[in-house]
């Protein structure tokens, strides 16, 4: 059951290996770059999966519940709550996020929260999403630099096959 429950991690690993194999095995520069892209995307999935909290909703502070400032000060300090003994049982073995991320919810005024259903008080952890947004931008930049290089290589060598390029270099 645990294997099925972690299917998103399996997808990430399969994608990772597919991409990695493509980078290593293909001689065509474009195909290599495609493989590299798949490899990077698998990491995006890994990050997004780890942000998921069971029964968690989008991390939006609901109207009137609290100001951002208050929220920040009232969040459980990570220093005090990272996996204290006796929590996070499956989390460790499952490789999911620690228990303290489950605890992150607005704790402004309890009355103001009455509009929300109990389950919506649980947040998905937004931080991995933010991180991966940065990584996606990096991925786009890498791909564009790579493609630009391939265009230049095509102009200089007249081919984008790895072996033919090596032959050309050996001749000159």
């Amino acid at each position: 059951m645990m294997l099925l429950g972690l299917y998103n991690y399996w997808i990430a690993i399969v994608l990772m290996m597919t991409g990695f194999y493509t980078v290593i095995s293909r001689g065509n520069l474009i195909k290599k770059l495609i493989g590299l892209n798949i490899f990077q995307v698998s990491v995006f999935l890994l990050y997004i999966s780890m942000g998921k909290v069971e029964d968690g909703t989008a991390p939006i502070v609901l109207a009137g519940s609290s100001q951002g400032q208050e929220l920040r000060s009232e969040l459980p300090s990570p220093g005090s709550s990272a996996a204290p003994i006796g929590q996070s049982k499956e989390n460790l073995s499952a490789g999911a996020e620690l228990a303290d991320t489950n605890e992150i919810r607005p704790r402004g005024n309890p009355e103001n929260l009455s509009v929300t259903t109990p389950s919506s008080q649980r947040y998905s952890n937004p931080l991995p999403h933010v991180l991966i947004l940065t990584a996606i931008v990096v991925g786009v930049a890498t791909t564009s630099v790579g493609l630009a290089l391939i265009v230049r290589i095509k102009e200089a060598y007249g081919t984008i096959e790895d072996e033919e390029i090596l032959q050309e270099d050996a001749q000159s």
Partner: protein
Amino acid sequence: MIAEHLPVLQILIPLIAAPICVLLRNRHLVFPFATLVSWMTCAVSVVLLQRIMMGESISYELGGWPSLWGIEYRLDPLSGFVLLVISAVASLVLPFGRELLLREVPTEKHYLFYSAFLLCMTGLLGITITGDFFNVFVFLEISSLSAYVLIAMGKDRRALTAAYRYLIMGTIGSTFILIGIGLVYMMTGTLNMAELTERLHRQVEVQNRIITVIESRTVLAAFAFLTVGISIKLALFPLHVWLPNAYTYAPSMVSAFLASTATKVSFYLLLRVIFTIFGVQFAFHDMSLNQVLMILGLMAVFVGSAVAVYQENVKGLLAYSSVAQIGYLVLAVSFATGNDEGSVLGLSAGIVHLFNHAMIKGSLFLTMGCVMWRVGSTDLKDMKGLAKSMPWTMAAFVIGGLNLIGVPLTSGFISKWYLILAALEKGMIPVAAAALLSSLIAVMYVWRVVEVVYSSSPADETVGSKQQEAPWSMLVPMWIMIGASLIFGTLSRFPMEVARRAAEVLLQTGS
């Protein structure tokens, strides 16, 4: 008021200057601007290092967010030292490259070149100064992407394929690092390095057994990903294949800058991960990484040096010699297994060699820049008898070569001395002998160049032309660097003191 913001200015100055370079466009404006920026950055890092050495601990919270939530810049003796190396090399290489760039890069691309150069510098400085683990990845990519662009600007078309290979391998490396960071974050819920260390060593109960977080399988996987990823970036043998061609065909000032900074920063990152985040106990005693590093380091030293002997292009020769020198760095780290004298000696040998090698390899690549400017090629066959027409450049090369070998009174000697001292302290006499033996191979490849340059008769074309020596604007920065390597060879107190402090701090936090 400025003083308290210096840590962030260290990064902001070059980061903001990079787009300004693109806006200025005119290369007569861009060059002095970029040089000025690099000098300002260098001044900032000098002040910062001074403050650290006075015993001040510097921590800067970006945007005023507490370090648990926001990004923290944190400086200890090691990061201060590496910051100084990067910015000092940049501030010498930039004025050097002005004349050279005219011959190696089309003039309409100069403003883009300077912009990419400053970005690369920003990335390298950023990796060093930041205390946030994800921030490391971001800066790593900033520096790598701009390095690919810089390498691809080389004159030879092989620069393009070299840059492409570097891009593929570099991206795999940094994606591995990204995976490692993600897995560590999963287990700890923090990205702040200091906080990470503490939480990794905390105890939790899993299925009625009490274990420390660091023993969980996720953290083991993270450790593996991080080590391999950083090793690719470090060009540790056998993951070095991207390095030789990249350094050989890049524009000479880029080779000089990257050879003396990029791999050094990866080395810094390796130290951070081993000593600050995971700790010596875990990395070296539980995982036996030190044995892996020692074997790979020794292999790098021998294979790198041996291949260097057979290179026909002197820049290629220097690049392979870099692979060998990285071997020494890693070898030095592998001694640092505890808190005893041998460990401190080994680690400080590594850190001081980081500094010395940056100067040595930087200045050697600068001499090749002069040759490139003069002859238009760095093939050994085109350099016959060059010492007659370029005495100053070739004298610099000889001194640099002596440094590489580790002749007494040069800074290369200092690093090797402490390395061997550490090996003896640890009772590893074969390793000490191997380090000595490998210096002999260095003699061989340096001698090959010296022989061609000094004793064969010049090729016809080089005799006829009027202008013999490289211009002053190139000779002066080159000789400052070479001079520094001699000064720090005889008066080694300053670098050794900093390196020792850095090593002690690392070993304290790590154990």
